[in-house]
């Protein structure tokens, strides 16, 4: 995979537009318009907002939490992929993305457990998403196939 673009900025709402604009640019450039573009933007937005929210306490006491986003493209298993890596140096926070999120889709609102909607959407909106704790960084990697979305990387 080859890095094609990256940004980094403090993990705060002051820089929200920079993060969102970056993701939108990469989605348009590599996925074009449409549902898959929207899915990537949705998943990234959820992860970025979680990072900003989860690191508020640290930033309030002066710890500088940096959020970095990189876009990479390349070939895996004979298919072309866009990979978006989102990392932060905030406290270790494992969202347990390997777990299937159950937001009780089929149940009436009043019977549904609160929470989990954002991470549910992350899982359902991209081809693959992974979390890795690589101290001192929380690292999220999102994969979107460029072109035919029928296959997934090993």
């Amino acid at each position: 995979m080859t890095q094609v673009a990256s940004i980094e900025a403090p993990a705060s709402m002051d820089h929200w537009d920079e993060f969102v604009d970056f993701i939108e640019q990469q989605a348009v450039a590599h996925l074009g318009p449409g549902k898959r573009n929207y899915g990537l933007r949705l998943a990234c937005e959820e992860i970025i907002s979680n990072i900003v929210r989860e690191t508020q306490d640290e930033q309030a006491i002066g710890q500088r939490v940096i959020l970095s986003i990189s876009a990479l493209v390349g070939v895996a298993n004979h298919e072309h992929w866009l990979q978006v890596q989102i990392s932060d140096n905030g406290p270790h926070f494992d969202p347990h993305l390997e777990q299937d999120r159950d937001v009780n889709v089929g149940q009436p609102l009043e019977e549904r457990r609160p929470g989990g909607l954002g991470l549910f959407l992350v899982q359902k909106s991209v081809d693959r998403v992974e979390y890795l704790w690589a101290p001192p960084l929380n690292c999220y990697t999102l994969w979107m196939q460029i072109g035919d979305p029928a296959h997934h990387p090993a």
Partner: protein
Amino acid sequence: MNLTIESISKDSYHVLSLVGDVDTKTAPSLLTALTELDLASIGDLRIEMMSVGFLSSAGLRALVFAKQKMPYESRLILVGASDDIADVITKTGLTQAVLLVSDHASIT
């Protein structure tokens, strides 16, 4: 992208007309607009989505908040939502709480 909200009261329903994106940054303003309504006694609430390009979970939570405050028989109706937004609402099972229509004429 920012979000502008126009609030219009009709005889038997209320309209919120949205222009922009509903994401983590802008969803609080939608929530504010919703809390300014008398949701507990409102009839139908129609939210015009024709000019909304993006809706994230923050926006969904604002909609869920509104529906939970409304009388059971009142409808929360999204008018003119894009296919992408409709897909998100369907995927999260919120079509039980939110009615999706293409235009005002479709509402009976």
